[in-house]
């Protein structure tokens, strides 16, 4: 059982790793790199708790074989914060009370992060489409949607001065 060599950048840091042929990206992030902000809910691509950004796009790290992500740039919830400053999306989630138990939150933030990179001023429908793969069992979706729209608006105003 030969291990597979991969070289990936996670939150700006390069990692050279030897992974098993069956390891998923989420296993590498959580068990090898100890980045446990990325959660495993269903492990079948339904719940979105494992959502991370790969080369700027939202992907499910439970459905990604680690061996296949060689050469890619991964961003996890640990990497969106700027120093001790929360990312505007994180701040918006706190401000709008879009968090209850918090298990789905990292996945939602990462799905929203990829959306805002691609579309800085999304419509409500675009936000809901981007969150369609993220399940929440506590607060529901109204507040996360509100938080993401508020964040996009604030970031747009800041950008335009």
């Amino acid at each position, binding site marked *: 059982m*030969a291990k*597979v060599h991969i070289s990936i950048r996670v939150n700006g840091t390069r990692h050279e790793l030897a992974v098993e042929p069956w390891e998923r990206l989420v296993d590498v992030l959580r068990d090898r790199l100890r980045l446990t902000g990325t959660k495993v809910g269903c492990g079948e691509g339904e719940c979105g708790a494992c959502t991370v950004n790969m080369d700027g796009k939202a992907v499910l790290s439970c459905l*990604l*074989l680690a061996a*296949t992500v060689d050469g890619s740039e991964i961003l996890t919830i640990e990497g969106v914060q700027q120093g001790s400053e929360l990312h505007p999306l994180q701040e918006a989630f706190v401000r709008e009370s879009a968090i209850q138990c918090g298990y789905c939150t990292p996945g939602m933030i990462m799905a929203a992060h990829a959306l805002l990179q691609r579309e800085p001023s999304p419509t409500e429908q675009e936000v809901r489409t*981007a969150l369609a793969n993220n399940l929440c069992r506590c607060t529901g979706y109204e507040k996360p949607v509100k938080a993401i729209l508020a964040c996009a608006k604030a970031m747009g105003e800041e950008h335009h001065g």
Partner: protein
Amino acid sequence: MVSFFRPREYYRPKNLAEASSILAASSERGRVIAGGTDLLLQKSKGVECIVDISKLGLDYIKENEQGICLGAATTVSAVHASPLFSSGPYLVLSEAAGSLATATIRNKATVGGNLCNASPAADLPLPLFVLEATLLAVGPEGERRIPVHEFFKDVNVTGLSKGELLKEICIPPCPENAGTCFMKLRRHMTAIDIAVVNAAVLLVCRSGICETARIAMGAVAPTPVRARNAEMLLMGRKLNEHTIQEAAEAAAAESKPIDDLRASAAYRKSMVAVLVSRALETSLRRCP
């Protein structure tokens, strides 16, 4: 969480010829991986060997005089976003791509994967059926072209032989005056669930008379199928409420769905008529 998906070997071939020879030499449990969104769910089927084709330059959409060619490892989101499919008869492909699972899954799921997984409810086979696409396979014997309607053999079974891989999907030029549409019924408006019934239609008509009608249906047989009886009913006839309804009922009659956890066979048959009639109406409206 324990994952039961436990392949023992992983290969990253340098080209398709090498990928083909690894697959040809592997056991029956050798599988190709591109995005992995279907393969990583195969927990009980004992995948032993994985051949990674995600970095062989198979993610492309090219247009030439033969039509439009898609590399097998092109992501579903790239198809959905491509301006080549945003209008005209190719719209049916963009609509199907945009309805496949969720935006997050579409970022990794590939066109070739959706075809080779050969789910009876898969979305992308249907637009490719009505556009009469041809698939280019590569194997130990070289390349061969397979019409898309001959590709699917049974539930999760394709016509690819041992050591063969899907390389490219070729869509021939389409009549300018064609109108197309894709429709999909899911439970409870959830984005993630697969189709209860899905359908694609292509119509070519002149002065309201049908010159070509192609209707494809999914989740109503072990493989995606064309509704040939319904198509024949429309040929050469005036397209109106009456003939559309007649064709929709013919499509329902020739569908052979099963009862499962998503819907009963009887419900699926009724929904075939609804989806086909709506897809025909929309396609007619879209005929230039």
